[in-house]
């Protein structure tokens, strides 16, 4: 059993990503009686770090540095390595996000360690955590454990529930001073595109469109439904290839693999590559005019009909129940 786990938290637009709290829950599974060190790297983040206590961190350490304003692999690796050297943890856990994927790989490489990425579940085999992770985009699953060294893992958002926040929990946030060498990576600009403000990989509701939407303009109909449900918009490859939307929205074997609570598939047929990316959604709804569409074979609920008729009615109906 691990005695000490470092959880590297992540912020986006000044707020913690929920997966950071889920990672703390994962750490608690690995070290139920151990020390959970919440770590935060960034610039001007110290005041927010105490939130990690609310979700179960027993200590919180921060590296607050100008050079950590934006994520760069070099800058963050230097800061995180300083923390790992100081804490000497048995395990390091972070979210399976753009940042987490990158940083965990660099840390594991530097520590001569393995890394179990994209874990969706954890069980203990005696002292060893065994992680479940999807392979072949969810067409199969494997259970993997580290053989030796520090255990590194990234946790897929929306799979391991975070514990309820307890705002009465607090502690003093420790600051770690790290000298960060000049960065070669210069970030010139960052353009925010996430229209609904809900990231696809973390969304609990996804409204995904396919070729059946027939145009870029029609595709925008999905925004309204996603907004209404506090969700994000996704797409099939067909819709991206037809330029109805950006490739960043693509869900599938090439594209994102998602696990929302509710997946509403609008006008998409359910090609095997797409299904691979969404088949583990908890509840799947399909709207399609073709009763033979493969998506119906995996949908929990299906409506066969013209989506240009169904979708507006569905939006109106949702408006009645969603406050």
């Amino acid at each position: 059993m691990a005695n000490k786990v470092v959880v590297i938290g992540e912020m986006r637009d000044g707020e913690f990503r929920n997966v950071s709290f889920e990672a703390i829950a994962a750490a608690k599974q690995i070290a139920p009686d151990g020390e959970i060190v919440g770590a935060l790297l960034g610039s001007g983040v110290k005041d927010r770090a105490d939130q990690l206590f609310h979700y179960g961190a027993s200590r919180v350490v921060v590296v607050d540095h100008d050079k950590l304003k934006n994520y760069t692999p070099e800058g963050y690796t230097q800061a995180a390595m300083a923390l790992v050297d100081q804490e000497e943890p048995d395990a390091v856990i972070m979210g399976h996000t753009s940042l987490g994927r990158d940083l965990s790989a660099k840390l594991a490489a530097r520590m001569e360690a393995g890394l179990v990425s994209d874990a969706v579940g954890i069980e203990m085999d005696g002292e060893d955590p065994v992680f479940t992770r999807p392979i072949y985009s969810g067409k199969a699953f494997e259970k993997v454990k580290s053989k030796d060294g520090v255990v590194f893992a990234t946790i897929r958002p929306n799979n391991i529930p975070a514990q309820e926040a307890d705002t009465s929990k607090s502690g003093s946030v420790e600051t770690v001073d790290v000298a960060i060498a000049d960065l070669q990576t210069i970030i010139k600009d960052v353009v925010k595109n996430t229209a609904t403000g809900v990231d696809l990989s973390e969304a609990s509701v996804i409204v995904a469109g396919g070729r059946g939407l027939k145009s870029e303009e029609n595709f925008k109909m999905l925004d309204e439904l996603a907004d209404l449900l506090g969700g994000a918009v996704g797409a099939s490859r067909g819709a991206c290839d037809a330029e109805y939307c950006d490739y960043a929205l693509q869900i599938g074997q090439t594209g994102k693999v998602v696990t929302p609570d509710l997946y509403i598939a609008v006008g998409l047929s359910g090609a095997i590559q797409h299904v691979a990316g969404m088949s583990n959604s908890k509840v799947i709804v399909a709207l399609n005019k073709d009763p033979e569409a493969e998506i119906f074979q995996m949908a929990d609920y299906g409506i066969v009909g013209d989506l240009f008729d169904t979708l507006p009615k569905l939006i109106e109906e949702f408006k009645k129940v969603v406050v």
Partner: protein
Amino acid sequence: MNIYVIMKRTFDTEEKIQLENGQISEDGAEFIINPYDEYAIEEAIQLRDEHGGEVTLVTVGDEEAEKQLRTGLAMGGDKAVLIEDEDVEDGDTYSTERILAGYFADKEVDMILGGNVAVDGGSGQVGPRLAERLGMVHVTSVVSVSVDGTTVSIEKDVEGDQEFIELQLPVLLTAQQGLNEPRYPSLPGIMKAKKKPLEELDLDDLDLDEDDVGGKTERVEIYLPPPKAAGKILEGEVDEQVTELVSLLKNEAKVI
């Protein structure tokens, strides 16, 4: 420019996955170049055509991967290297990183390109791990690359947002969808590819011992997800179906 592409042979994305004796069955399965690696190959060819130099395709795998290397050569790669790893115990991303680092140890590199993720293992680790070991700067998930002298300007996809980054060669980049449209090998390309150099190496050639490159992780089990039970196709007029659906989502599935 000396451009290297690290690529992987993977299952065709259309393949259904079947298990046999607790392993993924490869019987009769089609294999392809990992789709994200195709973007890397295409980008490497375009950069070479613009700036001169040479594109070398490198893969770690078994002899079957020669076919995918030849396909990459037919697209326009100049030469290929197959590093055989059949004897590696519990090979994982650590193993691949070490083997590739062994290969690159004595190479003059301007750029290494690879896919952002492989569609089989799905970890996306090999690129950043290799960069770390080689002491190179790297950027993952790139959707645009331009080179001016030694300055590289990059657009990176960060979960839908875009970052514009500048750095200096040498650099390791991983390709995201949208970077380019990979070309199909032409018939003359396929004919030429047969004559292009393809070097086969093993661990000895790289001064590596099997023990050095054994995996740091171990697969305990592999299984298929349970088949999903048939769902409910709603009936009646559209208005009724829509009302019923929302009610079911609220009261039965409890997801809204």
